[in-house]
Structures are given as structure tokens and as C-alpha cells.
């Protein structure tokens, strides 16, 4: 198994069999002060965020903006179309009445919020990203089924090829392997 940090090295990949080992390990990596590293799990592990020290995302705020846009857009559209651009006399009702416009307004608010959520989430995750060095690792193919991984990138300021590999092995990983870029 090649252990020498080469030029095309992406980083090291440590495999764990059990979730709890990963959590412990993640906390240690965090304390060691690594910044460009990540955990890979087949399902969201509770507590792993804390262990990795990930702070809250700004996603909700984006959604709020999306929602408000939908709300105002809906209200303006309905007023403009039915009461301003071409005012219709319908059933002797007022040209613009709040009760009548509530449903559409609500729906558009929800729609834009949902769309924002969806696209913002993938955007912030920089996904889709069909090509990734980690996919070069055969071992990594189990990351979406039943194995748990920690990857530390070579770009991390604290990264020192061999030392980092030993550090990972020391965390009780079942296996540690370099990933070529």
C-alpha cells in the first residue's frame, strides 16, 4: 500500500466498521485542528455534527427570502392582473379582495420556499459534483452502504503525509489508504 505523499495525492481515507468509532475518531480529528477533512456515512449520524464541530447552516434564511418573494409576487400579480391592468366586473365583487387571493398567495409562498430549499441546499453542498477523487477508491464505494469513513485532504495546512496516515490509523480505523487525485 503506497504511503508516500505523492504529487497527485488527494488525501488519506480511513475506514471504520462501526458508527461509534467514527464519532470518537471525528472528535479527535477535530481537536487535532484539521480543517479540510470530512466524514462519510451511509446515513446521517446524530452527534457527528457536534463531533466535527459543524455550525448551523444559513439555509433557513435563504428559504425565508424565497418565501417572502413568493408572497409579494403573488399579491402583486393578482392585484395587477385582475384589478389594475384589465379590471373585470365579476359577480359585482370588489376588484381586489383579500379573501379571494389568499389561496394562490399561500401556494406561491410555499412553492418558492420549497424551490429555494431544494436548490439552495444542493448549491451550498456544491452538488451535483459527479466527479470526485474519493470515487477513485474502491473501498469508498461502501460509504453509501455500510461503512464509515474519514477523509483528510492533502491541502489541509496540518497535513503531513506519513504523520497524518499514522494519526488516522491511531484512531482505530480498520484501514487507511491514500486517495489519488
Amino acid at each position, binding site marked *: 500500500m503506497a504511503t508516500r505523499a505523492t504529487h497527485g495525492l488527494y488525501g488519506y481515507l480511513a475506514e471504520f466498521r462501526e458508527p461509534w468509532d467514527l464519532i470518537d475518531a471525528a472528535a479527535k480529528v477535530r481537536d487535532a485542528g484539521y480543517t479540510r477533512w470530512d466524514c462519510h456515512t451511509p446515513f446521517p449520524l446524530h452527534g457527528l455534527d457536534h463531533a466535527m464541530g459543524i455550525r448551523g447552516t444559513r439555509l433557513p434564511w435563504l428559504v425565508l427570502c424565497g418565501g417572502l418573494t413568493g408572497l409579494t409576487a403573488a399579491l402583486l400579480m393578482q392585484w395587477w392582473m385582475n384589478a389594475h391592468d384589465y379590471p*373585470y*366586473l*365579476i*359577480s*359585482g*365583487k*370588489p376588484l381586489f*379582495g383579500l379573501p379571494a387571493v389568499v389561496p394562490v398567495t399561500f401556494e406561491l409562498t410555499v412553492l418558492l420556499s420549497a424551490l429555494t430549499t431544494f436548490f439552495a441546499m444542493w448549491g451550498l453542498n456544491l452538488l451535483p459534483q459527479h466527479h470526485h477523487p474519493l470515487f477513485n477508491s474502491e473501498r469508498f464505494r461502501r460509504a453509501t452502504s455500510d461503512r464509515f469513513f474519514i477523509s483528510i485532504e492533502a491541502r489541509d495546512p496540518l497535513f503531513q503525509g506519513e504523520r497524518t496516515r499514522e494519526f488516522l490509523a491511531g484512531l482505530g480505523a480498520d484501514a487507511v489508504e491514500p486517495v489519488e487525485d
Partner: protein
Amino acid sequence: MSSMNQNGLDHNYWRSLQELSDEPEFRRFLEGEFPEPAEVPTDAMSRRRFLQVMGASVAMASLVGCRWPQETIVPFASRPEGVTPGTARRYATVMELAGAVSPLLVTSFDGRPIKVEGNPDHPLSQGACDLFAQAGLLELYDPDRSRHVLEREGGRPRRRSLGDGEAAAAAAFTALRARRGAGLAVLSEASSSPTFAALRGRLRDELPEAAWYEYEPVSRDNERLATGLAFGEARRVRVDPGAARVLACFDADLLLDHPTALRNARGFANGRRAEDGEMNRLYVVESDLSLTGGMADHRVAMPSLEIPRALYGLAAELVLGRGLSLPPGYESVLPALEHVRAAGHAPAWMGAMAGDLLAHRGESLVAVGPRQPDHVHVLAILLNEVLGNTGRTVTYGPDDQRGLSHGAAIATLAVTMGKGQVQSLVILGGNPVHDAPADLDFGGLLDRVAESWHLSLFVDETSQHCRWHLPRAHWLESWHDVRDHDGRYAVAQPLIAPLYDGWTPAELLSLLLDGVRRPAHDLVRATADREPGAGDWEALLHRGFAAALPVEKAAALDGRGVVAAVRRGGMAKPAEVGRENLELVFVRDPSLHDGRFANNAWLQELPDFMTKLVWDNAALFGVSTAAALDVAHGDVVELQLGERRLEAAVYVLPGHAPWSVSLSLGHGRTAAGGVGNGTGFRAYALRNSSALDAAAGLKVVRTGRSHRLATTQDHHAIDAVGMREREKRSRSLVVSGTLAEYREHPDFAAHRTHHPPLVSLWKERPREGFAWGMTIDLSTCIGCNACVVACQAENNIPVVGKDQVAKGRELHWLRLDRYFQGDPDAPAVAHQPVACVHCELAPCEQVCPVNATMHNEDGLNVMAYNRCVGTRYCSNNCPYKVRRFNWFNFNSDIPDVRKLVYNPEVTLRSRGVMEKCTYCVQRIETVKIDAKNEGRPVRDGEVVTACQQTCPTQAIVFGDLNDPQSRVTKLTTGDRAYHLLAELNVKPRTAFLARLRNPNPELAESADGHPAH
């Protein structure tokens, strides 16, 4: 026209237009260049464009006198300077049906008549118009009309050119003239035409050997015979219900089946408006449920054959019971009356009726219908005489003296034909093979006539048995003249050149007499010049009729004749109709008359005013009779009369007389055309020359089969739950009360339905500008259907056919709701015309997702067909269910000539769009534009909707609700006004005026004013 023929242009009016339509550019705009192709409807709408261009070209041509008839036509009213294509013009003319006259005003658009209305200046119509004249339009453009001369050799028809036909006829006629008419018989329809009479006179003089017969399957001969007995000469009985305060009708349908029905209706209605003074009272004794019967304050249903006894009973009650004195010389009728009185006790209603008649001497009227035998009519004449009505409510005018009655005439002709004494038979119109009495086997006899000519609009049953068939000119295509029931002279002018160069009967006669076919125009013109009081020809055409009435010699009652007839009738053994001896009554079909209109789709799909049947007739049974005989609605039964048999469907009609079965004549045609063939059941098959009106001894045998009757109301056999509810609800929908109630609480109508105060959730917009509204007076609406046809013609409403109606998909914008209330055997009848009521808070509008229906500034609920997507939500949400949906494209596959009937001012609706009454918005817009162009306000009554225009009783009033002085405002704010389903707070613009009944206080009254006798 000749110039065109020389230029090799097809002389068929329509096809010459077709040529133009073949221009590629023309096709382009048929396809349409509108931004949204999806928008441009299927061929349906482009048809209107087609016609406009066609019309325009014709108009242009007409300026240089191309296909326009050579004779000048003078516009009736306000003729525009020059002729502006694309604008409608109106011409006065008349239509004659079996001798009865409808004075008309026909709207012509670019050379094609598109609407028939009554002539407002003529006393007989006063603007109103009957069904047949209005629907005549569709007959004119009927693609099934015959276009060629047909010669039959060995039964196989060969097409001949008009020229050849004329030549052949001319030759044969020359021979006949040589024989002084020996072996010639002429069979004609009834006609009041002086021109025709003159020709007939000439025939009598010039061809003395020839015989003339006149036959109408439905006629008023009994009345005519009676006048012969009573006055020594045939007289026309003229009634004036307007002058009568008490009307007693014995099997007489004065409001519909009468030569002056329109005037009768108008007069009757004027006597029903309680707010304008006293109210008349109408008693009806009849077997079937007639239109007049529906309006009765007291109606007695009894078998037709027993009605004579009823009138004799009344006479006895009056003379013996109430001491009405007979003039000297008439005492000898007393034994007859005593005989009758001895026979049976007078029922309550009879006493009440007698009392009423006595109380209103000189302003009452006893009328007897055409189905009653002559002596009954004589008795009526006598009663009117002794009641002092003669000269007031009834007069007797001269009638042209012809010999045989129609029944006798056809029978005699049959006999002569049977003897082989007729070598040449000229049939001027009519369809005897279909409608002659069954026992004569006219068809068989006709086959044995060597030379037979049949002049008719269609190649019908009779044409199929004649050697020669000659195409006849439609009344809208021909010059004609008539003498109406009052003796007034009138001229009919053609609205369009004969589409197929057909001839008029007069023209054929002139060919027969003179050897050359003289144009009808010349014939009529000649008569008119002779006619005293006809006045200036142009003025005559302009006006449509001669102002002056001819002087008549008064009628003198011939006592002996009267006495003889009354004694004969009174002593005769009265018919005993009952379970063991049912009667069958042959009634004239309200839509098809005697069957001649069978191929008219408008009339076929016109709901019968009582049964609401379309595309069918049925054997009508009373409710209890049906129960007793164990037959149900839709069953097929075999009617057996002597050795004759006919299978017909059963319709159980509330209010129909017990032990009596009514079957309308005219259905069951076999050669009517694509529309009329095979609808209904051929009543003529049971009609013998011995009993043309009513026959006893009917047997009803159940076949176990059933027939699908299509009705526009009660689309399905209704269950008990629904029945109860309908009965309950109808009383709040059709608000009716008695005169007494009205006098006590004039505004009773408004308080019939109780509902919480009506408040809107929002501030309602004020009415500005126009606020069109309508009132419909249920007191005067007789339910005659004239408005329905008018609406159909005005608004290009398609017919959908029997199957679609049976599914509940009829398209009539205006429907006449009919409710029966109370005892099923003697119900009160209520008619209610319902079209879009143009709610101010219209429920249909708010649910339309695309704004295809909305309010315009005049407060109309308008419908933009070209915006409609067809969700049908508006219809679902309409409480009145007056919206109509185009389930298919009902305007496709229409033959070209049939398209000429379309009103270019109204869009043809394509498939998948909703439509409904527009208050005739096209008429409103036209009036508004004209008014604005002339810089004046719109006058009250200037906008007239099609239904309002044609209403015989003026039950419909239309106008501006923002104008406090307008009639409609006064009526809407008046006593009897109420709004249908007011509790929904949709604020309809159409208001109804509560129906008032004027029952005789002597007779016990049930809630809805129908007699409990």
C-alpha cells in the same frame, strides 16, 4: 338574370356564390389569420364570415339588378339612403296556412331573409307571430326541398329540367282545354287568395267539365257547416275575447288553434291585467289539455264526445234553470233542452258558469272548437245570440262560398277516382297520400290516375304516387295575396328569388288555363288593381295590407235552421264514453300542424307546451285512466279502432280527460325528408272519413315494449321523493294567487317566500348608465312557445336531435317551465319562461377561471364564447340552470343552403363553449350605436328583445331599470313583481309578475285556484 345565364353562370342562386367561395384567397380567410390559430374555431364560426362576404357580393350584385327579382321591392320602414351592405332591411309580407293568414315583417340581410316577425301595424298580429311563420325560414332553406321536375315511369322517378316539365304540362293542359276539362280534377289546399279564387272561377267557366276539390286534413269545417245551417250561407265566425268578460270555451283553443289566435291572445291578455281594471274569467271544457285550458280559471276535463251534452246542459241550465228567455220562434228547441235536462243533473260548475254568463250578457262569449259537430256550433251561435253577445264579442263575416266540406271533398274525389272518371289530376300543394282518411286508400287510387301532377315543396308521399312532381316556390319566394279572417286584403311579396325556380299554385293554374305560365307577380298585380281599397301598389307593398275593410252585408239568423239543428243534436242519443268504450281524439299537432312541417327541425325540437315532448308525438292518457288501464309513461300500446291498428307510445298527461286518448296528427311521415322521416306515430292510419275528429270504440292493447320519449323537462321518470318536492317548490317558484287575494294584499307575491334579510359582504357598486332589465308577466304568458322559436332564429341556436335532448343537452336559451299543481286529474297548470336572468351578483362569473363570463357596464351578464375554455363550472353554479353547453360541434355538417338562415349579427358557437341568453345584446348594441351616431339618448322601448317582440300577449317587457319612467321599471317596482330564488341574493335583472287567477267565488277554491268540482 338573363344576362347571367347568357354568360354561362350557373343560375342556381347558391351555387353561384359557391363559385366565389372557391377563390383561393377566399379560402385563406376561411382558414383565418388570427394570431392564435387555436382561437379560430372550427368551420362553425368562419361560416358567418362566409355569409357576410356572400351576402355582400349579392348586395353589390343587386345594385345592378343581377339576381334580384325583376319586380321592385319596397322596404317597409326607414329605408336607408341607398343600400348599405351589412345592414338589415325589413319587408312586409304575409304567410297563408290553410286559409289562415299571418301578417309578417321579414328581416332581410344582404338579400337573404333571416328573421320573420309579425307586422306591427296589422290588427291581426300587432307585431306578434306564430310558430309556423317564424319557422318558415328554416323551411325556405331546407336542403331537402325539391329542386327538379320529376317524372315517374313505372314508379321510377326521372329527373327533368323545369323547361321540359313545363312543356310536358303545357302540352297535356292544351289537350285538356280541348276536352273542356273532361276527366280533369284539381285538388288544392284551402286558400283565401282572391287571385286564386279568380283563377278557380275561370277554371269553372272555361273548363266546365273539370272538377275542383279542396282538402285540408285539419279544418274548421264543422263551424263553417254550422254557419251554413244558422245563416243559410257559410260565414266566418269572428270572436273578440278582448271584449269578453266571461269566456266559456267548449273544446275551443282560442289562444292557439284559431285563425285569429294572435289577436285573441292579445285581447284575452289585456283582460287579465288586474292592475288595469277588471279581470276576465275563463271557463274551459275540453278533453285534451290545450293551451287555453292551461290558462283557464275553471277547467273541466271530459271526453270530447261528451262535450256536446255539456253545452246542451248549459243551455238547459240557462233557459230552463235560470229563465233565460228565447226570442220568438225558438221555443221549439225547448223539448230538446228538457230532454237533455232530464238525462242528467247539472254539475256545480255548470250552474256557476250559467250564472256568470247571465251576469255578463253582451260581454260574454261561448266558443266551440273545430272538433265539435255542427249542431254544437249552432247551439253556441244561438246562446251567443240570446246572451246578447252577437255583434259584441262575436260577429259573422262573409266567407267565400265553396260547396263540399274538406272531408266530403276528399271522399268524393276518392269515389270518382275509384270509378276511373279522373284521367288527369292536378294536386296544388297538400299531401293527401299521407293525410287523407285511411279508409280512402288515396295512394292506391292515385296510382291508377293516368296523368297526375303534384306541385309541392318536397318530393313527399304524394309526389311518389304522381306521374309528375313539380317544385313549388316557398311562400317567402313567391308573390301571393290573401284575404284575412276579417276580410282584409293583403299581398305577399317575395323576400328572395326562388332558390330552385319553383312555381306557385297560381302560376300552375295560369299554365293550365292560358297555356303559358304567367308570373305570379302579374297575376297578383292584376287582382290588386281590381281590389277595391287596395290603393296604390307601392303603398300596398310597403304597408303589406290594404287599410280599408270591404263592406260586408250583415248576417241574418235563420231561425228554422237553428231550431232544426239544435233539436237534432239535443234529441240525439248522447255518446257514452267509458272504460268499455274509450274515445280517440285526433288533435292538430301544435308543432307540425297537419304534418306539413315535419321536416322543420326547429319545430320538431320545439317542446310541446304541455308534454314538453320533442321529435315525437304520443298517445295522451289521463293519470287515472292510465292507472286503470295499467299503462305507464313510455309504454308502447296498440291502439285498435275498428279493424285499424296503430302502435304508439303512452304519455301520461295530468289533466287529460278520463277514458279519452288524444293523438296528434302529422307525425310518422315516410317521405318528409331527412329530418321528419320516422318521427312519432302516424295518427292518420286510424283516421276514417266517418270520424275525422273523435272516434269511439277505441281498444288499447299493451305490447310490453317501451319507447324512449325525449322531453325537455322531467328528463327521467321521477320518483316519489322528487315528485313531492317539485310540487312543494313550484308554488314558491311560480307565485300565483287569486284576484281576491290580490285585491286584499296587492304585494302578496313578494311575501310568498320567506328568507332572512339579504345583505352583501361587500359594498355593492351603484348602477350607472344603462341597467337593462326584463319583466315576464305570468298572468298573461300563455306558454305558446313563440318566444322560444324567435330566440332560436335570432340567436343561431342549433338543434341537437332527439338523442341529445333525451340526454338533457337541448340548447334552447329560453325554456318554458311547466308545472302541474294539485290533483293530477284536474291540476292547475303554470307556465314560466326562464332564460338567463342576468343576476347583478352573478354566481356564474366568480367561478369562471378565465373571465369568459363577466358583467358589462350595462349590468348584462355577458359571455365571451371565444374566451370560454369550457369548464362548465358556471353552469353548475347557476341556480337557474339556464346556461347551455356545446357538447359537440352542433354547427358542423350543415348543408350550405341551410347556412343562409344564420343571423350574421350573432356568433356561431363552436364546440366546447358555454352559451346562454344575452338579452339580445346584438340588438342592444345596434340601438346604442345608432342613438349615439344620431346624438340622442336611447328611447324607452327602443331596444326590443326577440322574445319580447314576438310575444302575442306582450307578457315580456324589456328596458332600462335606471330610467324611472320606463315601463320595465314601473313593472319591476309594481305590486305583482317578484324575483325567482330571491333568497339567494343574486339580484336577478329579470323579474316575474305573479300569476293571477280569477275563480268564480261560487266554486270552492283550492290553494292554486283550480276548481274542486
